[in-house]
């Protein structure tokens, strides 16, 4: 088991970078033109998760039980177990006459069955706008903080490289959400922030090694040093991704419907984050002409 990897990553940098570039562009295009399927957290509206026991009630019955109530755009889907449905509609504000209570009563009457309203969420227009802007602010702040931390701990080239890797990971993850029209809600913001942290974590481990090797083999070219460093840390990269993925797959499969989106985003993020620390963060150092001098200068200044 005492294996030292000796893969040649340099030869694959070019094709990997083209692929990454292409994926990022496609993701950007998807996000800009196809858009994201925002959940009620960011769009405002109402969500009702309900459970019916009767075998005879079909999805179309559930849908029609919500019709004629002026609820705006209505979306009904099966949710987890049989008999569980997730109903979403546009209506954001309720008044005394037309409110959730009357909706519940109407639905019960129309389905002529006992309905268990398991979850009700309603987000008003003002709050959803605030949640969206605070989510975006949180992600930008996290990126800024990462940039700053790496800039303090490493050199500016490393800082740029790691931020490029994070942008790569976040954009592609969000792009996949756009492609598959998966719902983007508050927990996806949490997932994105964790991906930022994880991707950074992964990149830092390789960067740490690159820096160490730069001073050890000051004559070598950066791509050779990067290649050695990636190989030296490869075992760790694989094992950590594996255990993290094991944990995440466990949440995805067993954690219930509510955590599905979150764990799916995290799984994509971890896979892409691992890829990007090797194939995005490292080649960038080469493009930015990092050499022993770059870190030596820093050392003198300190």
């Amino acid at each position: 088991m005492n294996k030292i990897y000796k893969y040649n990553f340099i030869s694959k940098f070019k094709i990997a970078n083209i692929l990454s570039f292409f994926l990022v562009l496609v993701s950007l295009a998807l996000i800009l033109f196809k858009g994201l399927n925002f959940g009620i957290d960011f769009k405002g509206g109402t969500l009702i998760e309900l459970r019916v026991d009767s075998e005879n009630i079909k999805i179309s019955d559930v849908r029609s039980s919500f019709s004629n109530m002026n609820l705006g755009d209505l979306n009904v889907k099966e949710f987890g177990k049989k008999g569980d449905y997730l109903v979403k509609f546009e209506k954001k504000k309720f008044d005394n006459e037309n409110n959730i209570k009357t909706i519940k009563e109407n639905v019960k009457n129309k389905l002529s069955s006992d309905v268990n309203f398991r979850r009700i969420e309603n987000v008003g227009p003002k709050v959803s706008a605030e949640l969206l802007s605070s989510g975006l602010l949180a992600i930008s702040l996290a990126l800024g903080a990462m940039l700053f931390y790496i800039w303090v701990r490493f050199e500016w080239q490393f800082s740029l490289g790691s931020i490029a890797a994070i942008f790569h990971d976040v954009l592609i993850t969000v792009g996949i959400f756009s492609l598959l029209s998966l719902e983007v809600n508050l927990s996806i913001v949490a997932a994105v922030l964790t991906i930022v942290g994880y991707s950074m974590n992964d990149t830092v481990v390789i960067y740490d090694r690159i820096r160490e090797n730069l001073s050890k083999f000051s004559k070598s070219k950066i791509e050779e040093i990067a290649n050695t460093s990636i190989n030296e840390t490869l075992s760790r990269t694989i094992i950590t991704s594996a255990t993290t993925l094991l944990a995440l797959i466990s949440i995805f499969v067993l954690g219930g419907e509510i955590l599905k989106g979150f764990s799916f985003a995290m799984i994509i993020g971890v896979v892409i984050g691992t890829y990007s620390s090797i194939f995005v963060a490292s080649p960038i150092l080469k493009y930015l002409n990092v050499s022993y001098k770059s870190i030596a200068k820093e050392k003198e200044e300190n």
Partner: protein
Amino acid sequence: MLNFSKIKIILIYLTFFLISAFCVLNFFQSEEYFFKKKINLGLDLQGGSYLLLEVDSSPLQKRHLQAKVIPLKKKLIENKINYKKFKINEKEINFEISQNDKKRFEEFFTSTKNNEINIFLNQYRSLELDFKFINNKVFINLSKNGIINLNTSAVDQSIEIVRRRIDETGTKEASILRRGSNRILVELPGVKDPERIKELLGKTAQLAFRMVTSDKSEFGNDIFILKDTGEEIVVSKRVIISGDNLIDAKPRFDNINQEPIVAFTLNRSGSQRFGQATTKNIGKRLAIILDNQAISAPVIQDSITGGQGTISGNFTFQSATDLALLLRSGALPAPLSIVEERTVGPDLGQDSIEAGVVSLFVGFILVILFMTFKYRLFGIIANVALISNLLMLLGFLTLLEATLTLPGIAGIILTVGMAVDANVLIFERIKEEIHKGSSNNIQAFDLGFKRSIVTILDANITTLIASIILFVFGSGPVKGFAVTLSIGLITTLFSAYFISRHLTSIVVFRNREKNLLA
């Protein structure tokens, strides 16, 4: 790195033991301050309702401006300023003055001493009202800080009344908190159906008794449509008694027709005024106005001097009970609207707990098996570190009485997955040192730990930064994720740096020459 003094060992395990011991408190019921600490379950796990209420202060602003009209006019006259076309609308007062008077107006209006109209708000160091001149016109409106001040006091009063109303419904452990300048956050754990509470909070319950007049002129009167009969009535603006005068209200059945009614008791000044008004106006009708709706207008049969009366108006027993409750708990200063609601039923909460615990358990077992398979003896060390990590994480959550949410459980599982990273970094580094030909195990392990610790710190701090930002900006359940993830990172550092290092040192010193980790 591998030498541990006795004191250090004792300190490490004492810290570990003390923190993890808190886990135990979750299984006991104790009333004593220190021992009653527990991990709280979030609303998404125990079921309950989260309501974000917003105070709509526009009627307050209007009322506040209205109250300024008389003193303002008085002050204008006092300062010999001629004003014309005095108008007041929703958000501003405007009138015309001549060019020469502008300076005098500005002087008295912006004076910061003893200014009865435009009060100086000490906490913001600014005036309550703003003004501007456009040609000959003066426009007066509430300043930004004036509005904040108004909102703040409205929220303060509202919180009190919201609490009373919720208490009256018998809901336990409700938490009612201010959010920003004009919002109130209400959390109702365990409440299955928040509809009744929402209805109660949706009413301002401003009650007024006013005389019905035959005078049809609009000045000083309002026109209402009676709720019970649909009849149109003209009601004087003068309020005889209001909800403030009530000290008690109870639902009852009318003696004659067995209809539900609300019986109320007035305070002293209220009963005096009510007594005078009813004595003077026998045979006339008294309108009962609730939140700008006339609920009934009975004819005064007799003078009521005892300070006790009843309100009728086609109530059901439920609506009479609710009205009595609202009157008892007092009127809200301004209408509240629900801007965000999240309600989780108890069975979904239970399902989430089960799913969370099962996935935590399975994820944990998978990681442990993986590590044992991959690293054998050192895998077991990593697993011991992982278990102690988990115990400390739960201990910390208990100590801080943190709220555990479903995403919070996901944070714990993720911690399990990522925590082994520190051990992996160390072991891989040691392997390399052995491979490079360190003379013996002790040297290899020593170097391995030393070199990997910087990386471990760097790697974990970045994740910690992201989760702290999430904690600051996140709301509700997502915040719970940030809490478990952040604490998890800290316990991970502790368990890797101290516990697995110490355990490793024991193994290494016992097997100096063996090819460990091979």
